[in-house]
């Protein structure tokens, strides 16, 4: 008789329908993303311009500090383009990671009143960051025209590296978001990760300045692989990607995603009780 029931909730059992549910709730995912987008630019005076100004100003400062003052090697490309091509994935990562990490706590009213697969909430932050990314990307186009820089055919591989950036930020985002529900300390940890990461990752300089013997170690930071990949795709220069390091970065970001999802799924059912 119980076989007739389409859903059985039992203590301590993970649900069989979880991934099917995520698909079933895809419209909710779209609506929540749409809400985030709408809310983001309501009541901001210059609206969309923020997603242009932030990377642009950071790029100018970095070009000045790393390019002019520190005289880092420019790999034969205009320094602003060198910085900006790394700024794009970094901004994407830091935005979506920060948003995803805080998303559950920010949406605690939803978590405690409505059922849906909770993975949807941190995942929506990808969408807003992606839109920002597209806007910022158009600035890269302007920079290229300004400096008369012609990208090579490799730029077509860019979506692939964008996917790796998504995987990295989602993996870390899921993990921290779940931790944040129980331990609010992580609210303070996130800005640190983002700030240190900006200087530890090869954003203001090319990772070729790292001595060869340290590059594998340097690639433990998954964003190194993502950023190198972006530069390679956009600038089309050989030698920007250090292959063993790149593989390590990608493997680690996949591992982070895996751990993130496992931890998230494990703690998900207690979210409503502790949030």
């Amino acid at each position: 008789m119980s076989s007739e029931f389409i859903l059985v909730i039992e203590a301590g059992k993970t649900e069989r329908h979880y991934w099917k549910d995520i698909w079933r709730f895809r419209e909710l995912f779209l609506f929540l993303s749409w809400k985030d987008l709408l809310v983001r630019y309501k009541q901001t005076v210059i609206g969309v311009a923020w997603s242009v100004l932030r990377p642009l100003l950071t790029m100018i400062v970095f070009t000045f500090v790393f390019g002019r003052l520190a005289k880092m090697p420019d790999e034969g490309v205009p320094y602003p383009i060198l910085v900006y091509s790394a700024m794009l994935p970094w901004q994407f990562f830091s935005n979506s990671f920060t948003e995803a990490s805080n998303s559950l706590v920010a949406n605690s009213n939803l978590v405690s009143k409505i059922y849906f697969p909770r993975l949807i909430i941190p995942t929506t932050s990808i969408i807003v960051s992606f839109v920002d990314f597209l806007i910022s990307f158009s600035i890269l186009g302007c920079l290229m025209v300004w400096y008369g820089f012609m990208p090579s055919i490799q730029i077509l591989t860019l979506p692939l590296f964008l996917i790796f950036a998504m995987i990295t930020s989602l993996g870390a985002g899921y993990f921290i978001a779940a931790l944040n529900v129980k331990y609010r300390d992580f609210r303070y940890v996130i800005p640190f990760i983002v700030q240190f990461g900006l200087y530890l990752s090869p954003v203001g300089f090319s990772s070729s300045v790292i001595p060869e013997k340290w590059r594998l170690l340097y690639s433990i930071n998954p964003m190194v692989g993502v950023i190198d990949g972006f530069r390679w795709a956009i600038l089309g220069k050989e030698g920007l990607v250090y292959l063993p390091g790149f593989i390590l970065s990608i493997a680690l970001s996949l591992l982070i995603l895996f751990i993130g999802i496992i931890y998230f799924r494990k703690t998900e059912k207690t979210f409503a009780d502790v949030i």
Partner: protein
Amino acid sequence: MSDTVIKVENLGKKYIINHETGAGGYKRFSEEIVNFFKKTGKAAIGRNTKLSAKEEFWALKGVSFDVKQGDRIGIIGRNGAGKSTLLKLLSRITEPSSGRISLNGRVASLLEVGTGFHPELTGRENIYLNGAILGMGKSEIKRKFDEIVDFSGVEKFLDTPVKRYSSGMYVRLAFSVAAHLEPEILVVDEVLAVGDADFQKKCLGKMEDVSKSEGRTLLFVSHSMASITSLCNRCIYLSEGKVCADSTPSDAILKYYSSNLLNTPYHMNYKDFPKKIGDDVVILLEGSIEKLNGEKTSEIEIHDAFCIKMKYQILLEANQLIVPNFHFYNEGGICVFVSGARDVKQMTTGIYEAICHIPDNLMNEGTYFVGLAMTSYMPTGCKVNFFELNALSFNVKDPMDFRSARYGYTGPIPGVVRPILDWEIVKVNE
């Protein structure tokens, strides 16, 4: 039988109350780390003492019942009896600690009005967002959009951000979306407690329609016995996490009230409650029923005047009038009357006591429940600061002496009130 849509077996939900960290559910990471080292340290030297007084609390235990398709089930019980926990388990928001629930049909839950409403978004945008959150698809919302707007009566403000709405409009819009849900099983928590009476009736009517004509199943938590009796065909009475009655609404309500008689006191001290009752403006401290000689009691003679007292603390001085009011209900859940304090002036912070004098010979014999409430009135509108339904109870008794005009009749005299009125009997010569 094949028409059983919900089967609940031996359901339980356990919460761990951590006395050390207080009421906060979330912990600081540093505490966990310190605890971890303490634990391992103690284990290393062979001691196994408990670090903090962790106490298990079963919000629900051993709950079993079946629901058939088209059932409209009311769930009643005192605060903390486990009603909301049951709904949360049924709607999969939280996981049971024991037992199982088998569901046959799509469940939509309405545990709060306007979940996910975003103040910056317009009414139109919020209808779509809220609809999606409650489980409607985009095409479904589009199809019902006009109907929803019609029902809410806020057409004019559809493109205004809801943060500019009055609280009444906000609630109406939120309800309208929810009222148009069409799941096989609808789970509703006490959301009808807000909103004006007319609109409440409209929503109840809509829910009844949907349930009766389309055979949908409804689970409905309410403190309003009148709504339960009019809407439901079956009622579950929960007490301390267990099912105490599962029968017709009138039987369950009777049982609820008769058990309340034993439990509801004539004096309540809220100061020691773990959870403060009230908000940042005013909190409830104490409530009592007293005879004129100052004796606290629940037994009142019909010919005696008595008073209801409430102590409260004003925490914040603002441009508002903070008005205490008492709500009197009889055993049938009928509101006998509501009385609010008159001539309230603006008050400074501090502890106050409100005393409401009930005249003699007002209420008929029977048991009455008093709800203690506080409402603040601002130039922009009013707000309920707290409302403790059925906080106190008292029993009105007839000493059966000459004052009762019984002339030897000892049976019950019907009616909610029983005033002594002036009569004249004159002989007419014709």
